[in-house]
Each structure stands twice: as C-alpha cells, then as structure tokens.
C-alpha cells in the first residue's frame, strides 16, 4: 500500500462503503527499514499512479479517436495503440473544433507541430505492472477481497488478450465469384508485388516470386537472386481511386488504362481511407515501378500497378489485361496484390443471396452458400450469413461483403489465437464486480439497519 493513500484515507469523509476497498485496509505492520526494492515496488503499486495512467489512457483513446478523422484506422491503431510513443499532431484539436465549433474554426485552418505521448503498449504495460505490483504489495487472502482479485485477474487477461491479438491476429479475405473455387486468402493489411511465370513442369500452375510491402513503400532499387530482374520502386500510393470514363472526363483521365471491356479508366492518388469507414471501403494502394535488367540500367518495362487491376480485388469493377514484363523471350506477369496465403482446403461459392426488406432497398440479410473441400477431398455445404460465421481449421469465416451486382461474395477470414480471452475476461470481471459491489452494498445496508 502506498504511503500517501494510508495517510489520506482515514481522514477522508468517505462513505463507509469504501471499507472493503483496498485503500481502507489497515496499514501493513511498520517495518524497520524498507529496502529500496520494496520502496520501488510500493511506488509502482500506488493508486496515484493508477489514476495518472487512467488520465493518460483517456487522453490517448480520445486522441486515437480524433486521429481517425484524418488517417486510416489501421495506421491509427498502429501509431496510437500498438506502439510505445506516438507524436500527436496539434491539428487534431483543430479538427475537433472544426466538427464541434464550425463558426470558430475555419475549414482551411492548418496547424503544424506535434507532441509526444505515451502510446498503447506503454500505457497498457504500465497499467499491468501497476496492477501486479499493487497485488504483490497488498496481497491478503480474505473473502472481502475475493471480488477485487477476480475482477483484476479478468482485466489482466483482457490486456494480455489484446496484446496477443495485436501480435498474432491475421485478418484476410476470400473473394469468390459465383461458381468459382478458391484456395487462398488475401491478407489485406499487407500488399505484395507478385511476379508470375507459367510453371513449365505443371501446366495450369504458376511460379511466383513476391516482394513484401515493406520493401515497396520507399523508392529504391530491389535486387535479389530469386528475382528474374531488378525492381526499382518510384512511388508508392497508400490509396488510389479508379476513375470511370464519364463524358466530362474524356481525354483528361490521369494515368489511363484500357480495360478488357475497351473503355479507358484513370487512376489518381487518394487520401488513405479509414478501414471501418462509413462506406466501409478498403484502401487500394498503387505502385509506380520500373523493371530493369539485372545489374544494368536497361529498362525492360515500366508500370503503374494497382490493386484495382488485380483480378481478385475485393472492389473489382472491371477486368484489366495483365501487366507484363518481357525478358529474354519469357513473359512475366506482374501484379500488386494483397499478401496471399494458401490453404489446405478450397471453397466453392454455390449461391449468394442479398435479401432486402420487401419494397425497399434496405438489406435484410446477406448469405453465402459455400462448399468446403478438405485437403483430402471431403466436401460439405455450409451457409454463412450475418451473425453466423463458420469455424474451420482455427479460423473463422464471416460474411463480409459482396461483389458488384451480387456476382460473388467476400468472406472475412480471421485467425486469432487469443479469441477466447475476452470471453473469459468478461466472465471474470463481471463476477468480480458483482461480488465486490454486492458485498459493499450489503455492508452498507446492514450498517443503515444498525444505525
């Protein structure tokens, strides 16, 4: 128990209900000379630190919410919650003002500068240390404190669960058009540059070399033995927009490409969208890249690649011809696509339904009837719909979205080894609070009855 709380508690005109609370427990027996380690532990265990950390957490969550006005959810989560320090731009406060006090903050107002702030890992870690230290210092096995222990154990599990999720959860999607069979998922958080050539030994299969996203986001030359040629990254766009060939835009489309349907489509650099945007849209990155003969400056081909052109894109609107690089008589197809993971099983879409409320265009339900084909050829039919996912091989398949014109379904595929921890935590904390507040209440009512 911290010194400060021992001193302060008895003089506080606190209602007696706090008698069961940690601060009101009788102070520990005086020790002759507490060791330095013990003093440090006490400091770590202090309730003042807890409250201070709560204040910082509230501010962090608030900043992390405001930050989503301007940047994507993924970068916000990464910068604010899954890192140690975040530089919070002052512009956030301007944005807050622009939403809630339009008259005082003009839409154009821009403020530079930022300040450092402890981010999620730091605060979560400190809260965990504080909690563990508090229990180490004040541990005393009594029934009166059983509730507090249970609920704090639940909180520890929740924090650890979020840590495990942050480190290990993989969210991917599986896009299947009607009648198609697919055996891979796209991990949309990461993209890769894929270089494909037909496999001379196995017709119908490709040989693939991929370059991961972290090498693509900065301009520079990538050389590797496995690559048939050198890759020089010119520009990386976090998000892009595909422009339809409307009459007004004719002849003025930036970066035009002709689709398989014969029309020209343009592509522009776009602000990063938030992952759970109102329109629930994904980022569609693009990559300006040159392919050079190994070790020379000879340009084989130069392309503006984009996930829009990727045939399995979740937002595909039209199909585009493949982008290729020719080298010594061989043709390589290059594409920018979400990181691909192959599965043992494959999935076939039998039917996709998009039900509306009668007479409206308000969706009532989305459902996909799929056939899962195991690695050993076993088949079974499964219906996935809203609030009814499929569990398979440690992964969960959810109805996520659909292709334009209900032509196919997009399933969200999530692997999260820590999925059960929130459930456990919720149960423990609820139980703990019920016990703790319940005993407090009973004591209070008894006291009233006596007096």
């Amino acid at each position: 128990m911290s010194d400060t709380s021992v001193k302060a508690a008895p003089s506080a005109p606190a209602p007696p209900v706090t008698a069961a609370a940690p601060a009101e427990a009788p102070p520990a027996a005086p020790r002759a000379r507490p060791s330095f380690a013990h003093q440090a532990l006490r400091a770590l265990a202090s309730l003042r630190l807890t409250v201070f950390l709560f204040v910082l957490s509230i501010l962090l969550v608030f900043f992390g919410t405001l930050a989503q006005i301007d940047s994507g959810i993924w970068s916000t989560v990464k910068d604010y919650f899954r890192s140690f320090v975040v530089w919070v731009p002052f512009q956030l406060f301007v944005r807050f003002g622009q939403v809630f006090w339009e008259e005082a903050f003009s839409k154009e107002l821009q403020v530079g500068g930022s300040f450092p702030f402890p981010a999620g890992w730091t605060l979560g870690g400190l809260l965990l240390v504080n909690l563990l230290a508090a229990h180490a210092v004040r541990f005393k096995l009594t029934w009166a404190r059983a509730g507090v222990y249970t609920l704090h154990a639940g909180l520890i599990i929740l924090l650890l669960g979020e840590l495990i999720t942050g480190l290990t959860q993989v969210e991917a999607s599986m896009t299947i058009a009607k009648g198609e069979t697919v055996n891979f998922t796209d991990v949309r958080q990461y993209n890769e540059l894929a270089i494909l050539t037909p496999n001379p030994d196995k017709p119908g299969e490709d040989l693939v070399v991929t370059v991961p996203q972290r090498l693509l986001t900065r301009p520079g030359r990538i050389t590797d033995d496995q690559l048939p040629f050198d890759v020089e990254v010119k520009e990386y766009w976090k998000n892009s927009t595909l422009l339809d060939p409307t009459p007004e835009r004719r002849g003025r489309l930036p970066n035009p490409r002709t689709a398989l349907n014969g029309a020209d489509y343009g592509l522009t650099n776009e602000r990063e969208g938030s992952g759970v945007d109102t329109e629930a849209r994904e980022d569609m990155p693009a990559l300006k890249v040159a392919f050079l003969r190994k070790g020379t400056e000879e340009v084989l081909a130069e392309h503006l690649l984009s996930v829009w052109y990727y045939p399995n894109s979740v937002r595909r609107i039209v199909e585009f011809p493949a982008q290729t690089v020719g080298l010594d008589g061989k043709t390589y197809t290059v594409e920018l696509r979400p990181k691909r993971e192959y599965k043992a099983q494959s999935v076939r879409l039998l039917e996709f339904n998009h039900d509306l409320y009668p007479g409206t265009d308000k969706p009532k339900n989305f459902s996909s009837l799929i056939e899962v084909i195991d690695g050993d050829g076993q088949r079974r039919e499964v219906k996935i719909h809203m609030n009814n996912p499929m569990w398979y091989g440690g992964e969960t398949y959810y109805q996520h979205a659909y292709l334009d014109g209900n032509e196919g379904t997009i399933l969200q595929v999530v692997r999260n080894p820590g999925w059960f921890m929130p459930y456990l935590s919720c149960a423990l904390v609820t139980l703990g609070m019920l016990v703790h507040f319940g005993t407090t209440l009973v004591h209070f009512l008894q006291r009233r009855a006596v007096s």
Partner: protein
Amino acid sequence: MKQTSRNLSWVFVSVSGLIVLLSLLLAAVPAAEGPKEFHLRAFGELPVTDHGRVKPIDTLARVSLLILSGKQEYTDADGQAQPAVHWLLDVMTAVVKNGDERRRSPERPIPGPSADVKAYRIEGEELKKRFQLEGSTASLFSFNDLYRALGAEGMKELAEEGANIDPTSPLGVLIDQLNWHTQYSAFETTHKVFRIDHDQVIALLGLERRKGLTYGFDELLPRVSHLHREAERVDKINPKQRDPYEKKVWDVHQHVTLYVGLARGNAKTLHLIAPSFPGDKWKTLPEALRDLPGRGEEDDAAALRVHASTLSFQGMLVNYNRGEREAFNKEVADYAARLRKEMPADMDRAGSESGFNDFAPFYRCMLLYVFVFLVACVSWMWRSPVITWYAFALMALTVLLHTWALGMRMYIQKRPPVTNLYSSAVFIGWATVLISLAIELKYRNALALAVASLTGFSTLIIAHYLSGSGDTLEMMQAVLDTNFWLATHVTTVTIGYSATFVAGFFGIVFLWMMLVTHMLSSLREGRALSFWGWVVFGTCAVAACVFVILLAVGLLNGLWYGSGHRGSLRMLVRGLSGLAILGLLFAPYLLWHRIKQATGSAPPGLPPGARFLESFALTEHTRRVLVWMMYGTICFATLFSFVGTVLGGIWADYSWGRFWGWDPKENGALLIVIMNALILHARWGGMVRDRGVAVLTLVGNMVTMWSWFGTNQLGRGLHAYGFNDALVQMCRWFWVSQLALIGLALLPLRNWRDYKPTPLAEATLPPPAPPVTHRAKGKRGSTRIQPR
C-alpha cells in the same frame, strides 16, 4: 399551524393528483366517432407497408407530416388543429378531386388557386410575342393569363416546341415551368404543411417569409421547376460539402417528392393495398389499380374476391372525396373486418400502434416529469412528508407509463428496446429514472426524484428532437438483425450510459448546493470579507441564481418544444420565462444584504425571504447522502458500462471476427469505463473527496455525451449514424456548461462548511455525534469540506 400546514398539503395532494389521473384517463379513452362524421381514427388503424414494415396509416400520416412540417398535426384554414390522417386523406384524394373539377369546368385546366399566381416572368418583346402578350406592360403573368392568351391549342404547341429547344434559354425555362406546373397540378392541395425556414429557398420559390414558415403545395407549385433545377445541381454535390442553402433545397425537394408520392399512392417503398387473399402480395396503389379487371368483368365474384382490398381502398377514397360519410365508414369497417380475419397479428399491432400514437405516452411522461420536479421542489420548501411521499407516488406512476410505452414499442417492433438513436434516448431516460427511483426508495428526500425528473425530461426532449427525421420503429440493418445482441450488448451499455449520467446529475446538484451553502454560511456569520471573499460570494450568488433560471427557462421551452411549438402556448411560455428571469434580481438582493452586514447596518443571519434557501444547503447529512448516491451510482455504472462494452466486443468478434476495432463508438464506450474506474480509484486512493468526486462526475457527463452523440458526428466508423447539426450544437453547449460548472466548483473554498440549519443561539451546543459505523474505525469528526 402545523395542523393547517398538514391539511393544506393534503388538499394540494388530492386536488393535483385527481387532475393528473383524470387527464390521463381522459386521454386514454378516446371519444367515440359518431355516425355523422368520417371515422378517421378507424381509417388510421388500417395497416399499410412502408419501408418494409407493416404500420397503421396513422403512423404513415404522422411521420410524413412530421417530415414535412415538423409537427404531427396541421392547422386548417380556420385555425383548427386537425389530425394527420385528415391531411393524408386530402392528399390521397387530390387527384380524384382535381380531376372532377377539371371535368366540371374545362376552361380551367388547372382548377386550383395556383393557376392565378403571377409566377411567370416574361420580359422582352420577342418572348411576349411568342406568348401573344404583345400589348401587355406587365412582366409577371399567371398560368391562366398565359392560357387565356394562347388557348388550349397554343399551349400544346408550346409544350411540343419545348422538346427541341435549349432548356436553359429563357423560353426553355418558361416551358419547363409550365410543364411541371401542369403535371403536378393534379396533386394540388392548399394545406399549409411545407415548412421552409431558409430565406434563399423561400425566395427561390417566389414566396414571402411569413409567421410559422409553413406553405401550401399550391404555393410551391407554380415555381416547382426552379426547385427541381436547383435540386439537380445539388444532387451532384457530396452531402457533407453542401452549404445550408443547398441542404435546405435538397430537403424541400425531398419533401415535394414525398408529397407527390403520397398523392400518387406510390411513394418510395409505400405499399397501400393489403393482400386480398392468402398468398397475395402487398401492392402499391397504382399497381393494384392497373391489375383491376376492365368494365364488364366487375360482377365476376371471383374477380371481386381477388381484388377485394383494391376495391375497398378505392371505395374509401372515392367516398371520402364525395363526402359520403356513411359509405366511407362502412368501407373502412368492412376492410378492417376482412383483414382481421386474414392477418390478425398485423391488425392487432397496427391498432395498438395507432392507439399508441394517439395517446402520445412520451409526451405525457414529459409533462409528468416536469410536474414531479415541481412537486419535489415544493416538498423541500414545505418540508412535508406527505408531499415527499406524493412526489414518489407520482414518479412511480410516471415510470409505469414510461415502462408501458417502452413495452408497447417492443411489442410493435418485436425487438429489444434499443434499436436506434431515438430509442436509446427513450431507454436511457427510463433507466436513469429507474436507478434514481431505487436510490429514492432508500433516502426518501426527493433529491433523487428531482434528478430523475430532470434526466427523464431532458432525454425525452432529445428523443422528441431525434424523432423528426422519420419512423422511429424502422427496420434494422442486416448486421444489427439479431435480437440476442441487441438485448444484451445494447441494453447493458445504454444502462451504463444512464448510470453515468445519473451520477453526473447528482454531481451537478451537489455543486449547486455547495454554492448555496457557501452563500448562506457567509450570510449567517455576517463577518467582514476580503476582496476575494467578495468575489467568491458574488460569484456564488449570481451562479446559483443563473442556474435556477436557466433550469426554469429550459423546462418551459422544452415543454413548449415537446408540445410541437403550439402557438397558443407561446405567450404563456414567454411570460413565464420572463418571470423566471426576474429571479435574477435575487442575487443583487443577497449581495446588498451582505454589504449591509459588512458595514454593520444589518445583523448576521439570512435576509427576509431567503430562508427557503436553507432547504438547499448541504448539511452533514445531505452531503453524506449525496456523496453516497454518486459513489453507489458510479459503481453500478462501472459494472454495466464494462460488461456492455465487452459484450459489444464479443458481438463484433462473433459477427465479423474483430473483438476490438478501435472504432470511435467503441472508444467512446471504453472512455466511460476508464472514467468510472478513475473516479473509483481516485476516491479509494484518497486523491479526491466529496467535491472532487462531484467534479469528476461532471467530467463523466462530458465523456458520456461524447460517447453517445459526439462520436457519431466525426463521420467515421461503423456506428456513424445520426449526423446532425443540432446534435453538434447540443454536445458543444453541454460541454461548455459542464466546464463552467467545474470552473465554479474549483473556486477557492476556504469558508465552505457543512451548513447547520439551526438558529445561531443554539449553535453553541456541542455538535451531534457523527453516526457510529460498525466497520469504520476512528473518528470522522471533520465536517469541513476539504478542497482537494
């Protein structure tokens, strides 16, 4: 004296109680509809399908009228308030009525008054020549002027010419205007139900700003083409980037579309005609009429059965138009009787909903909450246990009514109570009242009742505002279509919000009472004050008065707003608000008395007329009680907001595989959990005491408002429903008010003590011993409220 006071309080209780009960009973039992009048209520109970939901025509009429005019009833030409169904029937029969008129007098192709409005601007010789108006010196003409000049043939030629010329040329614009006018003239009615409150839009439609800002369709009609042209332009602009004028143009355009849809019987998603036989579908009116057999086949009994609903509905409209009351009533009764056999469940629900609309239980709750608040105030001043008991009974009655209303909504919608922002407000209000009532049960001092009535009232006002955008029992989006999670996550988390608000309102009461306490203590002692002492005293006096006045004015205007801005009440509200503002004079009065004390010309003690303030001072007892109320409520809030938030995460994990997405709304809920935990830990650690807890509960209020409405305004995230300029304003001013209160609470408090409402002479007696507790050891003697 005491006996008189008790008798008087019994008189007050019985008279006002009788009035409340009688008015409720009268409202609950609607007057019977006589045989000589249209059975509008029976017609209103008939079911239709709109936005995928079976609802009574009454709801359709009310919601449509609410969207157009902001009210659920309208004022006819004689200044009489009329039910929405009446208006809807007039709109739905407009086509028949105008058609009859046109047949009767073919020389007037547009029978309504809009034909005589001088709305066509024709300038320049060439244009005038085209309209054969060469001699005229005027530049504004009515439809009839043009029709008389050109004749039927000339008008036809003109319309044909219009197809080949540039629509933006002066002639093209005029032809466009003529076309829209003629086309929409079939739907012309004169009820003033279009509310247009933007001067530029009023000017666009060639109208004049008038009191009430409501206009008839006949007034919009001649220039409706201008509206269409502007709306076409606005349509291309992203809704979030439209300026106020463009937003309003779009709104009015949508309103006109809705109106025309109702007149045609085919408004988007509206299916008026019920299935005629098992397996039949709901149909729109035009669909159903198209399917009717031609002449000669009508006698076929089978055809009659197949089209029974269509024929009935047609019969109702025709008879209504002809004024055949008995025939209309018979058609309505027959239709209802047949549907009751075919779809009894839907009929029951539609009937209940129509009755629910008629009774307007939430409006009645709103009135009752204000009344309970007043009775609670009376109970403190009168100090009569009878009245405290009465306030409790009234509150129990109100809660019953509120509960019944929530239950009815659940029955009608077949859903758990919270399904959208509107129902969250209604439910949060209910939960705050229930929590406070439980606390009141323990303390019986009407404090919790006052808080409950305020939270109940203000949440219902918010709900009333949120209902303006349409049907509050709308169908759920696909992802929300799960009663299990709606019942668990949504209900729990909203109870968490409610409890946090209750604690925060106790905090407000506590802080206000501290201001009063300081003022009274200072007056009781009557000693000389330092400069800062004067500043603090003055601030307390002014702030306490301003607070009460704002409360009174807020209640009055809220009531007026909740009653649908009834014009007859406007003067009353203004008058009473003015009277309340006079209360501001009380602050200088107290200050003046205090100055007299300081100069020695008045003895220490309260000035005449200020003794009633003693009821609102913090004694040791009330302080302890209030702090316990805050503390207990925060414990409750922590439990529910935590469980609710985690359940939300589990729902998310279960339905799209992401336990926590750091979405703004999720973050908002998390903030409430952390805030409540912070208050509890700060108190356990002795970092804050009574005043500190009260201040922190106000921060809790701010956080809850952020989570409830603020996060929705960012336009980001899964929960981004309900953008609203007014909500932005509400959030802002709520935050400012809480910050102002916190600022007041942080005034230097050297002299703030518990108030002892005993005469000074007796104050020398030893103070009563503090209540002995069987757990807490040591003396809690200090009654000084420590600033921490």
